[in-house]
């Protein structure tokens, strides 16, 4: 084993955490966030919602079961950098042969290992999320100066994280757009602002025809393919910068059943008149309890978001259906009369608990009831 190269994570508040370099030998910068899931590092690394962010994993032993490329959640690693306490250089799993380090290196993504990730997490929890850099140790000083010049996460437009061209989802992966004529099952348009493939797998498993469209797709583009429903997907960045998608959503309400997930939920919230705001350190993990208001039942959910919907401005015909029990923030909305609902958390899991797949069923039920009504 070669000698470890020393690296450091430098935070915007001046804190420095020294460790060893992991993955690609390059510098990186981004908003530093933490996720408390104990499994699912590969799914997190490839989750487009982490674009622009350096991900700190609070679970200390990462890479134990290796990397299994077919379970990637998007076309590439999406995080800007990875911070772990220990990286496993000898993974063991019936499927995951590849080592985490090699996976990061081959994708050109740097990381750092051997740091006190709990201390970093506590700092972020107390101070809020902040920008940070992973650099070689001899660049610590310059990084500290450089950090103040970096563009704030909230000002960055991550629109390019979504796709630029529409595509179809077939079993196994994305494919060039096909005319789905002759295929059965409801046709869903998914506005891909940076979605995880498992959303599409979930729809597909339920017999849907799936067409993904870029976030720039307008109402006409969407309606032109005759979908039975629209899913507004998760994605990175501040929802305030998604005015176009908010307008699209607003126009679609009343025309088609809509389901929003994460960013899609925030976009819907804004189209319902609400504002969105940044959370101090976000919700990222697989253990958040969410109260389903109408039933009183609690769901354990997978979460990854830094912003939330402020319920104050919501129009009267929209109700808050889900509440995060940790901080009482909005986790779900539903229109009282239109077939439109949204959730802040990730029904598609991956990583995270599989308890919430029924939300896709709910979406399909809505579609069916609308289609059924139209058919009469």
């Amino acid at each position, binding site marked *: 084993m070669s000698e470890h190269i020393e690296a450091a994570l430098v935070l915007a508040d001046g804190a420095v*955490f020294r460790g060893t370099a992991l993955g690609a030998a390059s510098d990186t910068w981004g908003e530093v966030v*933490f996720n*408390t*899931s*104990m*499994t*699912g590092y*590969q*799914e997190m690394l490839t989750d487009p919602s982490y674009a622009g962010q350096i991900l700190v994993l*609070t*679970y*200390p*032993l990462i890479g*134990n*079961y290796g990397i*299994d490329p*077919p*379970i990637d959640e998007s076309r590439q690693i999406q995080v800007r950098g990875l911070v772990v*306490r*220990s990286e*496993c250089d*000898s*993974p*063991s*799993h*019936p*499927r*995951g042969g590849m080592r985490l380090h090699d996976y990061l290196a081959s994708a050109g993504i740097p990381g750092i290992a051997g*740091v*006190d*990730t*709990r*201390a970093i*997490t*506590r700092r972020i*929890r107390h101070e809020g999320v902040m920008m940070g850099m992973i650099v070689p140790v001899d660049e610590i000083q310059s990084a500290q100066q450089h950090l103040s010049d970096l563009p704030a996460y909230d000002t960055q437009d991550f629109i390019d994280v979504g796709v630029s061209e529409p595509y179809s989802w077939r079993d*196994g992966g994305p494919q060039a757009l096909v005319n789905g004529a002759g295929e059965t099952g409801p046709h869903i348009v998914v506005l891909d602002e940076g979605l995880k493939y498992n959303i599409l797998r979930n729809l597909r498993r339920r017999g849907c025809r799936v067409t993904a469209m870029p976030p720039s797709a307008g109402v006409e583009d969407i309606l032109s393919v005759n979908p039975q429903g629209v899913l507004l997907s998760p994605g990175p960045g501040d929802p305030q910068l998604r005015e176009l998608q908010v307008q699209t959503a607003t126009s679609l309400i009343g025309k088609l059943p809509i389901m929003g997930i994460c960013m899609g939920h925030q976009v819907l919230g804004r189209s319902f008149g609400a504002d969105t705001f940044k959370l101090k350190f976000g919700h990222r*993990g*697989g*253990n*958040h*309890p969410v*109260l389903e208001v109408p039933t*009183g*039942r*609690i769901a*354990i959910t997978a979460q990854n978001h830094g912003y939330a919907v402020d319920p104050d401005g919501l129009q009267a015909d929209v109700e808050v259906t889900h509440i995060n*029990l*940790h901080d009482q923030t909005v986790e779900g909305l539903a229109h009282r009369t239109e077939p439109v609902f949204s959730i802040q958390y990730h029904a598609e*899991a*991956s*990583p*995270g*608990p*599989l*308890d919430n797949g029924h939300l896709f069923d709910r979406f399909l039920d809505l579609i069916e009831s609308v289609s059924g009504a139209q058919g009469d």
Partner: protein
Amino acid sequence: MDVVNVKTPESVLIIGSGPIVIGQAAEFDYAGTQACKAMTEEGVRSILVNSNPATIMTDEGVADAVYIEPLTVPVLRRIIKKERPEGLLPTLGGQVGLNLAVDLHEAGVLDEFNVRLLGTPLDGIRKAEDRELFRTAMRDIGEPTPPSAVVNSLAEAREALEEIGLPVAIRPAYTLGGTGGGFVRTMEEFERVVQTGLDASPITQVLVERSLLGWKEVEYEVMRDGADTCITICNMENLDPMGVHTGDSIVVAPSQTLSDKDYQMLRSASLNIIRSLGIEGGCNVQLALAPRQDVVAWPPESMREGGGVGVPHDEPLPYYVIEVNPRVSRSSALASKATGYPIARVAAKIAAGKRLDEIANQVTGRTQAAFEPALDYCVVKIPRWPFDKFEAGDRVLGTQMKATGEVMAIDRTFEAALQKAIRSLEFGGRTVLWEDSEAEAEPIKAAETPTDIRLWHLLGAVRADISLDEIAQRSGVDPWFLERLETIVKMERRLLAEPLTPDLMRRAKRLGFADEQIANLAGSVDERIREQRLAWGIKPVYKMVDTCAAEFDAVTPYFYSTYEVENEAEPEQGKRALVVGSGPIRIGQGIEFDYASVKAAQALRSAGWGAVMANSNPETVSTDFDTSDRLYFEPLDEEAVRDILENEDGGLNGNGGNGEVASILQFGGQTAINLAGPLTSAARPILGSSADVIDLAEDRKRFERFLADLGIPQPPGTAVSSVDEAVLAADAIGYPVLVRPSYVLGGRAMEIVQGVGDLARYVTQAQAAAPGKPILIDKYLAGIEVEVDAICGGVDDDAVLIPGIMEHIERAGVHSGDSMAVYPAPNLREGEIETLIEYTRQIGIGLGVAGLMNIQYVIMRELEERDGDVFVLEVNPRASRTVPFLSKVTGVPMVEVAVRAMLGEKLSDQGYPSGLWPSTPLVAIKAPVFSMSKLSGVDTHLGPEMKSTGEVMGVDTDYDKALNKALIAAGMAVPAKGRALLSIADQDKPRAMTLIRELGEAGYELHATVGTASLIRGLGYEVHEAPKREVGGDPDVIDLIRSGQIDMVINTPEQISSNIRDGFHIRRAAAEQRIPCFTSIDTAHHAVGAMLEGGADYHIAPLPDYTAGRV
């Protein structure tokens, strides 16, 4: 929200788990105590029943009504009739509690008194407990169980195999211990074993089951509330693959080799299962997950397509549901401590009608119990086996659990947590570096068999440079774990080869290397390494167990050490002291010491001091973060304890104080006491008796001189170091003599020797085991053994309070931990008691004891009409195992009084006089409980070596009732009528005559071996002679016991070695048949007496009613 929950009962009966036995240890004291607290918080009246006095749950103030009574249906019926509880909480008292709940239902008691079963519905219990119902229930919800078939012929077996596939396990029906069955991998083996199995089965039937040997074993702890919200608290992965009982497995939390896909798949299965069983509360699900196919081949060869190694990517890994425990369990205690999530407390609240989102998360203080803990560390549990005590025991691990206790360690890497856990085992100096000399020749062979030392065999194989792939294949252990062991071995090599630098030291510490290990490898000494380490600024920081991976601020001061950057356990201001706990439960150091540690922490807090607790045992109340102001989950060795103390010091210094945090060592058994010397050498203050006091009591020479100066007699004895010296000494002292090695305490390897032949054998063996170490020979005095616990006032207080005197039923020679002890002493004379008080006072003051002290005396009456002579056998300047028993029956809060004395409060100021505390108007008897049916190969006869794992108490208004209850509670109840087998050693025959007459007169059917039979005939009673096995009778005496034709065995061992074997088999057969077996004439005599003298007519009452004389 003011939601009034209609379901909340007004009162609840909680059934404890009874005595500590293998498979059911302190975890249920923790669970029950939590449940009682939860009931109090919910405003529900709690009624607790347990037969085990050494528990916190049976302490005053934990439950609203406490019954220390036998756990039987008739007893519980009487309690239910009297207390009329609205609900019964059956899921917190282990299997004992669960079984009793079912029995109470089946006996119609629950219906008769309108008692509602809370938590798990009866139907759910049945589905979980009954194999066939369970399989059906799992099939109904689509959860896979291992395929199996019951067959009656080889042809049927062949047919079944096509579905099931090799490898399979064959289990013949109705054979004892699975004789005739086995594990088969090939077709030839299959045909042969099925045939043998069919032949062995009296009904020609075998079970053919898909073998999962070598599959990964994974557990989930699951909770569900009445609103159907389901969560998992923790998952755990066993290092030992399937085939070893999970209680005997090394366990890691959370799972390490499961991908998110695997983790979530098994999590969902576990949630499905708890839903289908309708459990409201906690449950434990055990699953088997397919391992790497290069480690264990699966699916069976016959079913594999193409023979590829990989599994198709869109297919999830195969798994099977193995077992469900519809209650809190040992695993849930472990999971509670591993995560900080109080499973028992939450389960109890759910049973009382609360929803998960209505229960606060105590750890954060601001979130609810409705979430899943996130760990940011790694937890390792290692079982603690009793094979240091039972060298003859069968060490191979399988489906029968053998461990008495366990340790847990937390760190940020597996390597470090594992190494800390090994340090916590306190297994006779066996560090990570220990090597099994017997395994050296073929290390890989040794690693194949799961035993208590397989971990060391695996390390040995790694050190022998055997490829990890091969070790994985031969042992079934996942390569991930082996890689971690290799990391440790690589560091060992670096430490051996390289000069110690700050960088190397830091790396070693981060991998969990103890200073002692580093010293060994680097050729230095511990203290030097410690100094060097601190000089380099390498010291541990302490991180919090907070349930949420630092996502929220937590208020719970529960810490573990690690070598990282940020320390979260900043020293606090104010007076405080460290209570050192007692580590894993083992024979000789049981739950009694956890009781004392908990009480010590409570006493400190009530005296206005901060209580800091250190312990390594996850099953305990002491490691409940509620017990102390700060909990350090750490090994209890010098390094860890000094590190904790140094971390705690800062506050006082910062406060301008000059003191350092002191340690309290007298409550944690020998584990804590052993630290007195090292801590004193390190100039650390100790509260209570000093290291010198302890040394004075433990050093034979010093202690002899001390007693001689006081004029207090001891049985004559001396130390020898050769056979010749031994024979001379024994001749001078006179046989019988008590012999023991000088280098271990607590009855280990002690024997009573009757003659020169056995003496020579003993000395020769002991010399071989520990060359050069002296052997102690004492006169064996077969008198009345008496035990005294006392509290000494300490520095400026010469008061010595004796809360009570206990008399043993067995004469001296049986280890005090295995004796039945009676309070108040029934047969002592006033003059003898006065001597006991005076000696105790003189010894306490003379030694300079501050706090608790235990003295064992023997009283020899030369003439029956005169007071006997009192001899001192042993003084322990620490809390003894009788402290909880005596505290409860005397009403003196012994630990609290002792702690206050240590803190400088005079006994008189506490309201306690010097001398003997007046007896309470009750009779209480402490009886030992053994786990012998679980430890094959271990002889069950009572002797100077302690063998019991737990204890029960029988309390009543008179001796016979109390004794009868103690025996019922201990599972040793003498049947009122029935068949007794007697096999009495020659030296005991004179004393057995009264007993024989009593049995004969009472109309017992007597069976006996040859010699005893002629004695019985001689006394004029009818007797069936049972041929000894060595004579070759058919059926012989062993067959008689095994076929269920005997209800009680009285067998005393011959001292002459040649006869040992038959007696051994008789006792083993009785243990396995689970019938009472008395190996002391004294015990048998008293037990039969109690039965015949109206002991069956016992009372049932809450403990305070007995102490106050209200019964």
